[in-house]
């Protein structure tokens, strides 16, 4: 009896080990395919929405079908963790050959020598197709470290029924609201428990900096020696003051959403609690999916200032790892991926705008449906985000600007205090990075 029990236990143990060995064997790394005469490039994409993932995978399949000697392997990355994941991959020499990221995440990698300088590698077609202002977003020092290919302006998503019944003038890219007019409109749209606007300012810094370009705000000023200092000037005040007054004085903006992300404001927007929500252009996909049956919404340009509709953006980018021995082949793949027709497919998949001028002419991006035409009309006004290449920006943003702006928007501090903290505390931070 005891022997049988022991045998059974032995059999169980052996079975467990065999199963484990099989599982582990099944999960062991295979070859990278570089020793069979073919080149294999690993393309790490951050596409995440169903249509976008499908568009990327389809393009990779099309490339592989026509380029048997240079195979591209699609690798799924995640926006949530891309910086840490790339950093360790670079340090360990295991980075993907082609890297999808955003221009505001590239500075450390570019200055660290992890990304290839593409300035001498890119085909003339691509260089001339993408405007100079977009190339600025990926230029660090003398090098170009990525290809900016998708971007999104911040727009106002409005409840169309409420706009119609209020009788306010509906702005267009040709005749946008000024910031002052926007404030008046939100006052008119407020009342009966409804707010004219809900600002989702969980991350207040990029929204503030990017929208402040419309009124000439620059915040970061580079002197002749290349040193950057923070100066909070008249142009920088317009957007923050408008929000502050909407929340604190007019009560036309909800104070509840100041700490929210964009998605958090949508239930209130659908329920008619907020007449407008300033969001990134790609949020339209969520709105289209989640809006109740019959809910009528429309896309409006963000308010304009002395610089018109200018606003800062950090485009999505495609870069090539410095370590890859197949830069020429990787550039050829980028050239294929960013052909105008393909760029349009990627843009539609991500509900964003392509940077390429030829792609922007595609009729699919000029339809009124889902506000595409309004967004496309804003493409010419998009500039490099002001903090793009400022060293020390991340610390300035986290330690100084985010708490200062949050306190200002909620009414805890005034404009003078905000200016003092952004400039004095901020310049102390930046100085450490520029010694």
């Amino acid at each position: 009896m005891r022997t049988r029990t022991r045998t059974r236990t032995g059999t169980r143990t052996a079975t467990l080990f065999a199963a484990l060995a099989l599982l582990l064997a099944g999960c062991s790394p295979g070859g990278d395919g570089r020793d069979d005469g073919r080149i294999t490039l690993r393309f790490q994409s951050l596409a995440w929405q169903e249509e976008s993932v499908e568009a990327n995978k389809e393009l990779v399949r099309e490339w592989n079908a026509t380029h048997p000697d240079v195979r591209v392997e699609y690798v799924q990355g995640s926006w949530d963790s891309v910086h840490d994941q790339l950093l360790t991959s670079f340090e360990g020499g295991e980075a993907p050959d082609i890297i999808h990221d955003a221009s505001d995440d590239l500075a450390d990698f570019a200055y660290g020598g992890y990304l290839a300088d593409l300035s001498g590698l890119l085909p003339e077609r691509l260089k001339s197709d993408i405007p100079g202002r977009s190339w600025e977003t990926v230029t660090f020092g003398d090098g170009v470290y990525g290809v900016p290919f998708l971007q999104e302006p911040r727009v106002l998503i409005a409840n169309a029924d409420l706009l119609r019944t209020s009788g306010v003038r509906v702005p267009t890219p040709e005749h946008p609201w000024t910031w002052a007019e926007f404030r008046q409109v939100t006052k008119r749209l407020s009342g009966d428990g409804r707010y004219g606007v809900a600002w989702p300012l969980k991350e207040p810094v990029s929204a503030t900096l990017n929208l402040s370009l419309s009124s000439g705000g620059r915040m970061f000023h580079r002197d002749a020696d290349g040193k950057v200092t923070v100066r909070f000037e008249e142009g920088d005040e317009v957007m923050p003051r408008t929000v502050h007054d909407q929340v604190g004085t007019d009560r036309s903006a909800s104070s509840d959403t100041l700490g929210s992300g964009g998605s958090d404001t949508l239930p209130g927007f659908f329920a008619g609690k907020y007449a407008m929500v300033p969001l990134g252009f790609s949020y339209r996909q969520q709105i289209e999916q989640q809006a109740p049956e019959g809910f009528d919404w429309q896309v409006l340009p963000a308010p304009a200032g002395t610089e018109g509709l200018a606003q800062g953006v950090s485009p999505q980018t495609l870069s090539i790892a410095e370590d890859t021995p197949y830069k020429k082949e990787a550039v050829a793949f980028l050239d294929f991926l960013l052909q105008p027709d393909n760029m349009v497919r990627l843009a539609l998949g991500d509900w964003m705008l392509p940077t390429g001028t030829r792609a922007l002419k595609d009729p699919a991006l000029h339809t009124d449906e889902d506000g595409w035409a309004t967004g496309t009309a804003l493409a010419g006004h998009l500039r490099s985000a002001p903090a793009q290449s400022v060293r020390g920006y991340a610390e300035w943003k986290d330690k100084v600007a985010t708490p200062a702006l949050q306190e200002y928007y909620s009414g805890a501090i005034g404009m003078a205090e905000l200016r003092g903290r952004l400039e004095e505390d901020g310049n102390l931070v930046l100085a450490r990075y520029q010694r």
Partner: protein
Amino acid sequence: MRTSTTARAGQYAALLAYLVFLAFPFLWLISTAFKPARELGSLHPTWIPRDPTLDNFRQAFDEQPLLQAALNSLAAALGAAVIAVLVATPMAYVMARRRGRLGRAVTGWVVVSQAFPFVLLIIPLFLVLKNLGLINSVPGLVMVYVVWSLPFALWMLTGYVRAVPAELEEAAAVDGAGRLRTLVSVTAPLLAPGIVATALFAFITAWNEFFFALILLKTPERQTLPVILTHFIGAEGVADLGPLAAAAFLATLPSLVIFALIQRRITGGMLAGAVKS
């Protein structure tokens, strides 16, 4: 008597509140997993989906290799649990039975090692595993998980070994059993609940682990479930909430099932029937 009843009622109320607190996120996750997109955007969400759907599950499986990721997670978790227990059991026995300066120093070091943050270890670990050719491989990840779970496993098992009366082993020795026989036939069966509990701990830790898997596994066909779940999150934290909830719900099921199956063994008396009173 009245005080006692009141106190008992208070205890139950506290317990109920605690259970609700624990259960809320999981119940909400289940509810979200079965809601269509339009219900997710509702200002007044309901516990029970008004129009339940399996679309989120279909979309989750269509978009990401969830099944492969589950197999990878299973391999990593099972491997880590088995190896950690195999290594920790004899070590714990020695630490429990041979008390001395060395034992105390080892115990101290084991406790201190728990204080190292992940980020401190990840780059050296990455380089070591790279040199061993174990990047982007589940066996490499298992190695990390074993090392990571070993201190706590050791600490747990040491406690279980100490709870086994040394007199039992002495009695076996008096009856003529050798040390190995004593360990296998007397100590090991009494330790079984402790070993199962430790293995369960190592399994669940590895099953849920995210950071090491994120850094060490590069391709989707190697990635584990927690890493694949992040693929439902886009730029600026925007999430594809329905499919994310569906996939997260599926990812939590194995832990729950395993725990439900073996919890009686953990909570059962360790020494029931071992010593006649």
